[in-house]
């Protein structure tokens, strides 16, 4: 909060302890008296031709909100009722005691007050900072917040016109009061005068308002752009720069450099182009994730092509695991830099092909106790109602073919992702 000992004390409208707009409690804090006394003073001043209202509107229009950290307390509407009652009583008393004459002058005062309030509203609408403060000050009043939302142009106009109407009514009223009522010509003149005045106000205010609105819009757009930029910068910093640093440090280790570069390329591509799909939900995403893991772990490139897509279930997950095992085997034993993974979603079956052009092996020579091929690929596929074929020739590479029959209705095309 404000350090009163050192800083020059400035007059603010209070954000907490307020009843209407925080003028009274702000004044009270400044003068170091009870807010109740200030409020009472405003109400009593109402009796003098509406002076209290005029003063209030004036203060409201020109005083800035104080800056408060933390949540402002909600306004205490209950207090408003007695003050309104007292004010009304005072005016009634004045009319009764002082008679007809006084009431005419006090009506005039009221009209001036209305003009002041209307002008205040317009003034508030026109300064963007005020309006933002308004919206900030009203987090607990969602319905009021929508009223004052800076983006809502219609309500903004509505409020502007409302203020203008108040001004017009006040002016017309004054003319009507001060000119003998029988003279209808004078009333018409007064209305014309008021209309002219209003037009004058709009001519003066409109460019300012327009400028303000476009400023706000530009500001908002700027903010959005800034956020996007910041996000990109953060991504580049967190990932790309770190990867580049690691690559420099590992410049001698070709495998490590390739692995880092490949992983970074993949994550950048995903970030730039990829619609995000969860690997636990979609077949294609799960395969791509498995391929990415193998790429990272074994420093090889996996060329993934997936045609079509569908949701996963236990059987599909098993297929993905088998494919992953095939990739791992290729990465470990084939001695190649690139493995290709092709998967196709057809109406009645899923197929996955993992192919390398590496060393190859002889199925007959694989020992019975090696679980990689038999357990993780052949066994797993047959347990889930699918089948696996392994074709390998020494020196000509290996292809693992996995097939999983499917119910017809579960298939979705790639387009529906």
């Amino acid at each position, binding site marked *: 909060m404000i350090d009163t000992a050192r800083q020059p004390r400035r007059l603010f409208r209070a954000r907490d302890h307020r009843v209407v707009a925080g003028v009274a409690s702000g004044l009270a804090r400044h003068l170091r008296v009870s807010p109740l006394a200030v409020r009472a003073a405003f109400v009593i001043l109402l009796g003098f031709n509406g002076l209290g209202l005029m003063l209030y509107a004036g203060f409201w229009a020109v005083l800035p909100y104080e800056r408060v950290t933390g949540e402002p307390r909600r306004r205490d509407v209950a207090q408003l009722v007695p003050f309104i009652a007292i004010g009304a009583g005072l005016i009634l008393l004045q009319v009764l005691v002082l008679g007809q004459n006084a009431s005419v002058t006090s009506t005039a005062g009221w009209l001036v007050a209305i003009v002041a309030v209307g002008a205040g509203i317009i003034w508030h609408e026109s300064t963007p900072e005020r309006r933002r403060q308004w919206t900030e000050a009203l987090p607990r009043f969602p319905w009021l917040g929508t009223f004052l939302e800076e983006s809502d142009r219609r309500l903004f106009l509505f409020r502007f016109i409302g203020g203008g109407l108040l001004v017009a009514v006040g002016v017309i009223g004054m003319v009507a009061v001060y000119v003998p009522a029988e003279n209808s010509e004078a009333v018409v003149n007064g209305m014309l005068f008021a209309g002219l005045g209003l037009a004058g106000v709009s001519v003066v205010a409109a460019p300012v308002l327009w400028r303000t609105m476009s400023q706000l819009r530009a500001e908002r757009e700027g903010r959005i752009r800034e956020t996007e930029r910041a996000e990109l910068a953060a991504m580049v910093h967190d990932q790309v720069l770190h990867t580049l640093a690691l690559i420099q440090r590992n410049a001698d280790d070709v495998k490590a450099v390739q692995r880092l570069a490949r992983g970074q390329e993949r994550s950048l591509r995903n970030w730039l182009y990829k619609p995000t799909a969860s690997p636990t939900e979609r077949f294609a995403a799960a395969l791509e994730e498995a391929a990415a893991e193998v790429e990272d772990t074994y420093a090889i490139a996996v060329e993934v092509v*997936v045609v079509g897509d569908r949701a996963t279930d236990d059987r599909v997950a098993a297929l993905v695991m088998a494919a992953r095992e095939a990739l791992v085997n290729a990465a470990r034993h084939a001695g190649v830099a690139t493995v290709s993974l092709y998967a196709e979603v057809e109406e009645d079956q899923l197929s996955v092909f993992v192919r390398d052009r590496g060393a190859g092996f002889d199925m007959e020579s694989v020992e019975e106790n090696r679980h990689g091929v038999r357990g993780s690929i052949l066994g797993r596929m047959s347990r889930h109602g699918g089948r696996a074929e392994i074709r390998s020739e020494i020196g000509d590479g290996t292809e693992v073919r996995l097939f999983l029959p499917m119910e017809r209705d579960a298939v979705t095309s790639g387009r529906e992702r």
Partner: protein
Amino acid sequence: MSLRVFLVDDHAMFRAGVRAELGAHVDVVGEASTVAEAVSRIAATTPDVVLLDVHMPDGGGRAVLEAMRKSHPQVRFLALSVSDAAEDVIGLIRAGARGYVTKTISPDELAAAIRRVAEGDAVFSPRLAGFVLDAFAARPDAPVADPELDQLTNREREVLRLLARGYAYKEIAKELFISIKTVETHVSNVLRKLQMSNRYELSRWAADRRLV
């Protein structure tokens, strides 16, 4: 006589790298870094094959293709890009490129691809084959306006499948018991159908999907 190759890429470093790597295999007759420069210098040098970058300022490789295709039909284009997004790949093929390879390709493979394009064949990457298969296979049974024209034959689809599985042309030939020349014919047919098909679904699919 070695092949005359022209490089179009807006990155000088990349052009220098390709020139150095390809120098032994082909004759690099020129380079260009912008669309306008490419159009005028290709017309002047009339190379056998143009290696074309997809993403450049002022319209990219597509603009070059569209400017050159009518006036110089004998010049073949091979797209060479970091992007293997479906819309880039299919867009370039439709504009008339005879092949599409990514910049991660090895120099030997690139040289082979250039030779194949120069001889009039198409060069398909597994991923490109995947895109085409995806567009044709995963499609619900919508009424097709001109099925004869743009439907792939079973044989062509088989060839594409093997291509997408990472098979080389000669491996496909062995697998299907056909000659390499037949494989090349099938692939060229696929490419021709892909260019000529007026099925807007394919392009919409590619654009919607924004797949890498």
